[in-house]
């Protein structure tokens, strides 16, 4: 191993070291950690890994390494914390180019100085830009601003064979070539290592108002949601939260805009929520992904109330407590359960929820759980187009060097 370490130190002069306990990837032992500072250093480290048949996991802040399956092997962790910072920011263009290891909070601070923001919620505290893109993790703002995939204009990736490739560009309109940035967004580090990202930005609004209202159960929520989605008040986000199995259902809409018009719109939203309370501050749960065990549910909009009811009933039947929360205007809900939730209960719950989401034309995936819980469970569920995905993986990473087994279908 020491020879490999020497090679890695040459590839990444800023540092390489034997891995410790804290470097384990979702329970999987790691042999070495390297700290590249640039795409060429990432490429050099990948070459070392390929030579020594070490599987590679890219790590930003390491906040979502337990999403997906544990990798089959993880010989080398590429820690991108030395690749942090804004490379190019022309605020007049509302476009920023950053290194992948840049923490979202650092970026937010830099952008807010110019009255702008990324419009991607930091749903897991501490996340980096690269981690958010690799997992596609986002929160309430996707209602108005789209998901991560809709905010990424371009990127630089290092392929497992060391080739550095660029996709997209730093302009907001571009149809030149394949939109590889879409392919890499949400690919869980299985196709390449993201090193640079270009995002489209949004102006920070002058006024932000949160309109909240509680309801006794899911039955009361249905008519309110459909009235709100039809109203011209058009809130910028619409979240639902419920303590399971049978807590009150809270709806909270975000209205953003100019001082004055935003207040007027918030009043309209409050009326649509049949008596919502308007506040300048968000409820404590806003934008927080429930967990630590998290099931992600997707659905058509009209099935949100039914799905929320079924999730509640399924938890009640299993005697589970937890939290159901998500973007009711988008069709994404997250079910959070305590860490100690039994594996058998999770398996039964997942099966129940898969039945429920079939009617809702969506999917149920076990986004995050202890490795022991995930072992032997089908965490991803049915995946349309899986055969093509295998072929994409085969072309980009024929040696299965990158996070093997972490993604859908064993990819």
């Amino acid at each position, binding site marked *: 191993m020491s020879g490999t370490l020497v090679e890695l130190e040459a590839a990444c002069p800023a540092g390489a070291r034997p891995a410790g306990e804290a470097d384990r990837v979702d329970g999987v032992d790691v042999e070495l950690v390297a700290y590249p500072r640039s795409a060429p250093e990432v490429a050099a480290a990948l070459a070392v890994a390929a030579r020594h048949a070490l599987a590679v996991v890219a790590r930003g802040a390491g906040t979502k390494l337990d999403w997906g399956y544990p990798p089959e092997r993880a010989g080398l962790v590429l820690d991108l914390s030395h690749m942090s910072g804004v490379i190019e920011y022309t605020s007049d263009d509302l476009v920023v180019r950053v290194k992948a290891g840049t923490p979202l909070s650092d970026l937010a601070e830099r952008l807010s100085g110019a009255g702008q923001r990324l419009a991607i919620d930091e749903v897991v505290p501490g996340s980096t830009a690269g981690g958010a893109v690799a997992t596609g993790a986002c929160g309430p703002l996707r209602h108005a601003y789209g998901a991560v995939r809709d905010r990424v204009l371009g990127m630089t990736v290092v392929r497992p064979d060391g080739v550095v490739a660029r*996709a997209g560009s730093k*302009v907001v*309109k571009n*149809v*030149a*070539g394949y939109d590889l940035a879409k392919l890499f967004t949400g690919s869980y580090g299985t*196709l390449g290592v993201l090193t640079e990202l270009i995002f489209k930005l949004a102006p920070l609004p002058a006024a932000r108002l949160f309109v909240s209202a509680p309801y006794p159960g899911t039955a009361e929520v249905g008519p309110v949601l459909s009235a709100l989605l039809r109203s011209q008040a058009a809130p910028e986000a619409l979240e639902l939260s419920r303590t399971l199995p049978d807590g009150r259902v809270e709806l909270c809409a975000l209205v953003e805009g100019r001082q004055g018009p935003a207040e007027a719109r918030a009043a309209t939203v409050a009326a649509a929520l049949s008596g919502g309370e308007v506040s300048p501050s968000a409820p404590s749960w806003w934008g927080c992904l429930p967990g630590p065990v998290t099931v992600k549910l997707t659905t058509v909009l009209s099935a949100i109330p039914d799905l929320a009811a079924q999730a509640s009933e399924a938890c009640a039947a299993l005697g589970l407590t937890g939290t159901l929360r998500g973007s009711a205007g988008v069709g994404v809900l997250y079910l959070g359960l305590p860490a100690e939730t039994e594996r058998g209960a999770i398996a039964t719950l997942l099966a129940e929820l898969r039945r429920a989401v079939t009617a809702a034309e969506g*999917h149920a995936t076990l986004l995050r759980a202890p490795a022991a819980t995930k072992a032997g469970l089908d965490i991803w569920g049915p995946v349309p187009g899986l055969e093509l995905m295998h072929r994409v993986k085969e072309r980009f990473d024929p040696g299965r060097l990158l996070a093997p087994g972490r993604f859908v279908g064993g990819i």
Partner: protein
Amino acid sequence: MTDPVELATYECDGLTNFRARPAVAVLARSAEEVETTVRVCARLGVPFVARGSGTGLSGGAVPVSDGVLVVTAKMRSVLSVRPDDRRAVVEPGVTNIDVSRAAAPYGLFYAPDPSSQQVCSVGGNVAENSGGAHCLKYGFTTNHVTGLEVVTPEGERVELGGMAPDTPGYDLVGAFVGSEGTLGVATRVTVRLLPLPEAVQTMLAAFADMDSAGRAVSAVIAAGLVPSAIEMMDALAISAVEKAVRCGYPAGAGAVLIVELDGPRGEVEPGLAEARRICEEEGAFEVRVAAGDAERAAIWRGRKAAFAAMGRLSPSYIVQDGVVPRSSLAEVLHDVAALSEQAGIKVANVFHAGDGNLHPLVLFDDQAEGEEPRAEELAEAILGLCIARGGSVTGEHGVGLHKLAAMEKMFSADDLATMLLLRSAFDPDGICNPGKAVPAPRLCGEPPRPRHGAHPLQEAGVGEIF
């Protein structure tokens, strides 16, 4: 269809100078028929090209000589409109405008609105990732498609994405949209519908010169306003449209901007007032705000007639589609003018200023000795300006056959090779719209060629280019 006379209809798309005659055109009526056709092609190793309405502007739907052309224009059913789910499911031959028509009774619309929306098909929009005049605010086709049924180049019918967001796995919908028909044939498309905005306001601002208009665009974007559209025309373009449609733009304008905002009334009105103030600060000498739909249509009339009106200025022209960062608009327009003067060839500018998407029209006389190559050189030099500023060689027209050479200037060989990895995953035998969109290694790309004559849709009086 194999009759040579009938096949002539399908020789080209909206860019008429690339032509090829297929051996067979199949007018498919269903996904099954597309599947059967592609399967036969795959078995025999015969290249095929999918075609919707044929309105593309980059030669993307030009057939392969003696190959098969799969025409989806007859698959025009709106399969479902689900207002409570804000989705519609349509066949690929449905015209873009028909999606919004089907959604309108529910107070909803389909946001992408390419200029050819009366005739262009949703399948073609998926292939080209079409935008439209309002993509500044609403984005492109890729932001509005959640699911696809696709016949792969090997003749398999597969579902990608779906009705709900975030289908697990790679975002193959995102990879497929904008792939210019090289990854398969879309046979069913699920799109997002949006509520019709409460208010729409449109303003025309006239400036003495392009510099000040360009600065106004940058200032509007920098101020954090998100208009649904910002369009610009220069003096040459204005003079052409005045001759053609007498739109009555302010006399003496060196440039005009059209700025449109939509959304909740309470946000739109102050937004427009702010945009107006910015334009006036940057030197607008006259500002007109449309009082209603009729006045809005009058403001847009000149802009929409611009390409068709170019015939009044010049027998031939080359149109480019490059994109630059919005903050560099004034500077780039300045450089374009300098290049034009240097070459002694006129350039009219009509474009989507809000997102930095230039449409310089390089005007020349194809009968005049040596003008055509000089015009081509100038058009290429303008693309060079876009690339030098980190922009794109095509904002909306696509690569097709037309911009293969330009792709090699914008991207490195490694970038292009990486794109081809995706292509080979979908189309290992290379029979699906071969030779388009991404240049193959060592290919000597076609130089940009001028347009000869009007777009077939303009000639037929059913469409405009803008």
